[in-house]
C-alpha cells in the first residue's frame, strides 16, 4: 500500500530508542539505589539486650566436655522473658508517642523521609516482637500471654518512678550540706549583729554619737527587746 521509506525513519526511531533507553536506565538505577538505601537504614532502636539474654538462655550451647546443655531453672527463664517484656513496653511507649509527632513533622518537611521509613519499620518489628513474646509466654505458662504485658507495664511504671525518686534523693546530701553552711553563716551574722547591738547599747549612754542611727535617744527598756526579737527570728528559721 504505502511505500515506507525505512531509511528516512531510521533517525526518528533511533531518537525514540535513545529517549526510552535513557528513561528506563534512569528509573532502574534510581529504584535500585532507593531500595539499597532503605535496606541500609540504621535501625530505630539499638540492640535488644533483654531479648538476646532470653534467647541465649533458651538455647544454651552445651559446655565443652559435657554433652548436655546446662539446665536453666524455669524461674530464670520466666524472669528473662518478663525483662524482655518490660523493655518492649518502653519501646512501644516511645513509638506510640513519637508516631503523631513524626508524621506531622514529616508533612511539614521538618524531618526526612528516611526517618519515617525507619520509624515504620521499627513499628512493624515491634508488632512482631510483641506477638513473639505473647507466644513465648504462653509456651512457658499457659495463659500467661494475656497478662504478661500488664505486669510488664507495672514494672516499667514503677521503674520510672523509682528512678525519679533516686534522682531527687541523690540531691539530698548536697542540699543538706549547703543548708548547714548557710545556717551557720546566718547564725554568725546574727551573732555579729547582736554583738554590735549590745556594744551600741553599752556605748550609747556614755557617748551620744549614734552615727546615722535613727534612734539616738532610746529608752533603756526597749534595747533588750531587739536582741530577743532577733533570737526569736533565729528560732523561727531553725
Amino acid at each position, binding site marked *: 500500500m504505502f511505500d515506507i521509506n525505512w531509511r528516512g525513519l531510521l533517525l526518528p526511531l533511533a531518537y525514540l530508542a535513545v529517549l526510552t533507553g535513557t528513561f528506563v536506565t534512569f528509573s532502574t538505577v534510581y529504584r535500585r539505589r532507593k531500595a539499597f538505601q532503605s535496606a541500609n537504614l540504621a535501625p530505630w532502636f539499638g540492640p535488644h539486650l533483654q531479648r538476646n539474654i532470653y534467647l541465649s538462655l533458651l538455647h544454651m550451647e552445651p559446655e565443652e566436655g559435657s554433652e548436655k546443655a546446662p539446665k536453666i531453672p524455669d524461674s530464670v527463664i520466666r524472669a528473662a522473658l518478663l525483662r524482655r517484656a518490660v523493655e518492649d513496653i518502653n519501646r512501644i511507649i516511645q513509638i506510640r508517642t513519637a508516631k503523631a509527632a513524626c508524621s506531622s513533622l514529616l508533612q511539614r518537611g521538618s*524531618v526526612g523521609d528516611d526517618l519515617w521509613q525507619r520509624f515504620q519499620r521499627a513499628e512493624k518489628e515491634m508488632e512482631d516482637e510483641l506477638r513473639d513474646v505473647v507466644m513465648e509466654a504462653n509456651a512457658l505458662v499457659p495463659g500467661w500471654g494475656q497478662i504478661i504485658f500488664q505486669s510488664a507495664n507495672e514494672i516499667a511504671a514503677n521503674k520510672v518512678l523509682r528512678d525519679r525518686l533516686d534522682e531527687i534523693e541523690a540531691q539530698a546530701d548536697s542540699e543538706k550540706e549547703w543548708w548547714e*553552711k548557710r545556717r551557720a553563716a546566718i547564725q554568725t551574722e546574727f551573732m555579729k549583729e547582736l554583738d554590735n547591738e549590745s556594744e551600741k547599747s553599752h556605748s550609747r549612754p556614755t557617748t551620744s554619737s549614734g552615727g546615722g542611727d535613727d534612734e539616738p535617744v532610746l529608752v533603756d527598756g526597749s534595747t533588750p527587746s531587739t536582741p530577743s526579737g532577733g533570737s526569736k527570728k533565729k528560732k523561727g528559721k531553725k
Partner: protein
Amino acid sequence: MSTDYTYDEEGYLWPFFVFTLTLIITLPLTYILVKRSRDPAASFPRIQTNFKHKHTDIVNTLRKKEKRKDRKLWLILAVAIGWVVMGYMLVLIQNTEAPSQKLWNPYDILGISESSTEKQIKSAYRKLSLKFHPDKAKPDAAKNETMDDLNARYVEISKAHQALTDEEVRNNYIQYGNPDGKQGYSINIALPKAIVSDGNGKYVVLLYSALFGILLPYLVGSWWYGTLRRSKEGVLMESSNRLFREYKDNIDEGGVIGALSTGQEYDELFKGDKADSGLSKVESRILAEGKLSPLAGGLSVKDKEKLEDLESGPQRKALALLWAYLGRIELDDPVLEKAKFAVAPIAEALNKSFTAISLAYMNTAPLLSSYYASQLLIQALPPKSSPLLQLPHFTPATVKAVDGDSKVHTNVQDFMDRPDAKRRSLVVGKGLLTDEQYREAVSVAKQLPFFRVAKAFFKVTGERFILPSSLVTLVVKGRFVPPGSENVPEIEPLDLEDIDPAEDDLDALLGRKVKKQIGKDEKGRPIYEAGSDELISAPLAASPYFARDHSPRWHVFLTDSKQGRVAVPPFTFAQFDRPILEADGKTPTFAMQTLKAQFQAPPQAGHYTFVMHVVCDSYVGLDTKMEVTLIVEEASKAAEMEQVVEDEISEPEEDSLAGIMHVAKGGSSKELKKREAKEEESDDESGTDLEGDDASETNTDTEEEDN
C-alpha cells in the same frame, strides 16, 4: 511587496536582541546581589556598649565570615558577565550604522524651506534642473560620478517637484511617505545569519541539546535534591532526623545541648583528624573544678556522663566545645578558641529544628528547655547559671559577691531594682569591677529589652462573649521596661484597651494597614502619623560571645499546667507596632505594645486556666509566666444576654450600646461598661495586672534568703 524573512546579515539588529535578553536576566540578578550585599543587620538598632572581651576579634571575624558566605560567587560572576555583555552590545549598537532609511523629504531635495510658496518651489526646481539635467551636467570624475548617478539625481529632483505640485503624487507622498506609492516592507529576524548557515547547524543543535538535555535537568535536579537535603528549619535533614531521635519528654537544657551536638553540620566542621585534635585538652578544661558550678563547663553530672559515654569523634568534640563555650572557658589555643566560637551559632540553628520537634510533641517541658537552650547559646551561659553574667565585665567572682551563698540566682531585674549605692557597694571593689566597668554594665542592663506584661486577656472581635469553637484572640499588652529604668510613666488605662475597629472599617478588619492622619500641613496635604505603618524591631541581642548578629524574638504561648502540654502553640514576635527606643537609640519610650495571637476556642463551655509564657529567645531571665483564664460561654446563655440587649434597644432614648449597658447594670462610667464583658475574663481570678507589683513568677524572690 516582499514578506520574506531575512536574517540579520548586516549585524545591526541582533545586538538589540541580545541586549534585551541579557537585560531581562541581569537586572533581577543585580537586584538580588545588591539586596544581599547590603548588611541586613545594619538596619537594626543596637544596644550601645563598648564592651570588649578577650576574644572579641575572633567573634567579629566569624561574624564577617558568615556575611561573606551569604554572597555567592557565581551570582557576582553572572552579574558581571551580564553587564559586560550589555556594555559590548551597546558599543555595537552605537558603532554599526543601521542601513539608513531616511525619510524621503522633497523640500530637502529641492533645497528649500517647508514654508515655501508654489512660486519658490517652481523657481528652485527650474534652477536645479538647469544645473543637474543629464543633458547639461557632466559627470564629475573627481567625485567618481557616472552618468547613472546624474540620471538618478535628476529623477529625484523631478519626483520631488511633482510631489509638491502634482495632486496624485502629493497624495501618495502624504499617505505612504513616498511619491511612488506604497513601498514593500521586510521582516528581519534578529539572529545572526551564522546560526542558520550551512555547517554551523550541528553546533547549534549541540548547544540546544546541552541547554535542554543537560543544563535544565541538572538545575531542576540540584534544586530538588537541595530541598530534600535541608529541612524546613534550614538545617541538614540528617541532623533533624538525629535530633528527633534525641528528643525525650523530660529533657532539660543540658540535655538539649547534648542533643544539638549530634548535628551533621559538626561532621563537616570537624572532618578527619580535626575531630580529635585538642579534644582531651578541652575536656580536661571543662571538667576541671569551676568557680560557680562544680564543673567549670557548667555541666551537670548527667551531662558529664553523656559526654564521657560518647565515642570520640566530631560529636564528642562539638559537645566538649559547646560546654567550653557555655562555660566561657579559656582554651589557650587559637584554633580551639575559634572552633569554640564557631560551634555555638550552628547549635543555635539546630535548636530551631529541635524547637519544631518538641512542638510537634506538644509537651511544655522540652519546648521550654529548647527556648532556654537558645538563650544560653546566645548569651554563652551554662544551664542554671546566674543571669547577671549576661552583663559586660561580670565575672563569677562578681556574681558570687551579689548572690552570696544563696542557691537562687539574683536576676538582672532584681539586681537593677536595688538602689544604685547598694548594688555599687556589692560589685565594685578589688577583684570585682572597677567604677568604669560598673557603669558600662549598668548602662547595658538599662538597655535590655525586658517585655513587661501589663495585661493579657481573651476576646473575640466584635463579640462580647467567647462562644465555643469561636476564633479567640489572645491580646497581650505590655511595655519594654529595661531593668533598672527610672521614671517609668504610669500606664494609661486607655492603652490597655483593645478597641475593635468599626464595623465599616474594612481596611482595619482585613488587617490592612492604614496610615493614621494626624493633621494637614500648610498646603493642605495630609500629615500621617510617623512610623504607624512600619513595624519596629527590637535592638539586636547584646551577645558579645555569639558569633552572629541575632534579632531577639519573643514567643507567646499557652500551656496547660496540669497536663504539662502546650495548649496554644507559640506565636513569635520580632517586630512591634510602636517604637521601642527614642531617636537616640538608648532611651526607652515605654510605649504600650500589643501582641495578638489567634486560636480556636475549645468546643465546650467552661473556665479554662492556662499558663501564658512570654519567652525571649536571646536573654536569660527576662521571661514572663502568668496565669490567664479563658471563659467560654454557652451559646444559649450568650443569646439570652443578647436578647436582653435587644429588648433594651426598643426603648426610645437609648441609642448606643454603651448606654444600654449602662442602664442594664446601673453603674459607673460608659467607657468602663463597654469593656466589662471582656475584662471580667482575665481580671477576676488571674489577677493579670502585673505592672504594679511586678509579680511575675520568673522574678524569683530572693528576699527571704537575705534576711
